[in-house]
């Protein structure tokens, strides 16, 4: 049985940052800097193999055991509720899951609230907690457009600086939950590669909470 640690990294800025942290913690893989279109990178000496995947897919790779650990945003974990261990808050990629809408928006409860979002489960759970009936509109991108063109009343989305919102005359109205990147692990891998994964987790923790 192959005892390499398989790590699913999200493509993009968060993945780059997470990789730097892993590199500094003793899990380097210089091949990752080569400018090519490869998706897997291996360093047998350090005992790691990295995959670059779409950020929203990291949890799928980890839950199904193709990767032993991965770095995923809390937003993805809340939305898909994968059956994984959430080992560490990496305290990076920080942002907030918010309800946003026109600055002067007032929910008058006279109609069903129309909510556009990439995160239907989070939106549904939040509004059912408020006992507010909503009509969900599932979009895949440019969520901010929805209230501008009358597609929805508000949106539920990730807000980092709020710049896109303000430039479009929108504002965050309510914060649902703070978001940051998390280190997740497959539950079965954690039994059978436990020592290696715990060591990696401890190294990462030192980097996060020095």
């Amino acid at each position, binding site marked *: 049985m192959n005892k390499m640690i398989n790590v699913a990294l999200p493509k993009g800025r968060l993945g780059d940052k997470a990789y730097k942290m892993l590199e500094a913690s003793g899990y380097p893989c210089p091949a990752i800097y080569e400018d090519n279109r490869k998706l897997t990178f291996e360093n047998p000496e350090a005992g790691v193999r990295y995959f670059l995947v779409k950020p929203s897919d990291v949890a799928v790779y980890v839950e199904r055991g193709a990767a032993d650990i991965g770095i995923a945003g809390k937003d993805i974990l809340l939305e898909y509720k994968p059956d994984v261990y959430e080992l*560490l808050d990496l305290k990076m990629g920080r942002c907030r899951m918010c309800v946003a809408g026109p600055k002067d928006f007032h929910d008058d409860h006279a109609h069903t609230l129309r909510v556009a979002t990439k995160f239907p489960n989070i939106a549904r759970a939040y509004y059912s907690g408020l006992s507010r009936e909503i009509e969900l509109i599932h979009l895949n991108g440019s969520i901010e457009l929805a209230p501008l063109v009358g597609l929805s009343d508000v949106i539920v989305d990730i807000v980092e600086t709020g710049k896109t919102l303000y430039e479009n005359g929108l504002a965050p109205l309510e914060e649902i939950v703070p978001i940051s990147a998390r280190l997740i692990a497959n*539950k079965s891998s954690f039994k059978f590669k436990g020592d290696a994964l715990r060591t990696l987790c401890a190294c990462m923790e030192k980097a996060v909470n020095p």
Partner: protein
Amino acid sequence: MRKAGTQMNNLRADERISIALRTMYRQYGYLPYKVSKFEEYDLYMRNKAFLMSENVLAFSDMDGKLMALKPDVTLSIIKNTKDEGDQLKVCYAEQVYRVPRGAKGFKEIMQTGLEVIGAVDAYTMGEVLMLAARSLKAISEDYALDVADLGVVSGILAKENLTDAQRAQLIALISDKNLHGLAAQCASLGVGTDTANMLEKLVTVYGPFEETLAQYEAMALPEACGEALANLRAVLEMMKLCGVERMNLDFSVVNDMNYYNGLIFAGFIDGVPSSVLSGGRYDYLMQKMGRSAQAMGFAVYLDQLARQMDTRCGYDVDTLIVYDSHTPQKRIIEAAAKATADGMRVRVQRVGETAVRSREMIDLCGEGKA
């Protein structure tokens, strides 16, 4: 060499394991129990949280009654038992229908397991756990069986004034090994520092059964945890007598406290991404269903195993017999009969057809040509 066990070799890994498991359960006196594929929908609606997924395949019966294809076997078995006091030991192998976590549609899943309904004493608990460990071992030598006792968790939480929903939140965080989330949640719920520290221990202290249990026994846990710890100790001693290994004490297996109480466990196989076995004491479920008896059981889910464990062989049959228009039928029949009698899987095929993958080929072409 092939001849022995040929029948078993033709089965898929999950079918083979299912038969091996039922044979083992029968040896320990668990009687086979057959439940109907259909069940009243209402049964599942009343016990939604006990099910792994809330989705149930429903349909209307002839009289308009709403029925369901059963997503679980345990509820049906309890429903069909009388509250008489005698201990009932049953085992089953059934297809269940539900939406696996993260999936978008229903799946037919092979569930094999056993239940004890009636008085559950220390011996019975040990026997069930021993059979759980042996079930895993029958699947693969590389297994791990994680146990915990919910009594420890409820003992720690006993003096905190929490709602069921709040307790469920804390338990979910323990089961995710989410230390940072647990600390934040304890702070926001106003849980005492002592309690929060002990809950943290449930996340961080896990490992081989015996040494980990000793660590818990050495901690100053509340008195309310005493019974659960003694329970775990009794189970451990019995597992040692049975020669069961590869057991861990790990509180990430904790589950819904509305249904389960006491001992709870989950089994893993190296190479299979999620748990293949889960079980425990479910006296509370019995009470909810109006029964006074205690109960314990486990289920093994074989759906993931077929893919992981079926070793692909490079051929479809053992012997390929090829004939043409000249070959006398008698020759073909004789050749096929001889090969099957030798325990071979035989494919008889006219020359010119795309050949299936075979280990050996008998070419009868041209035989009988004048």
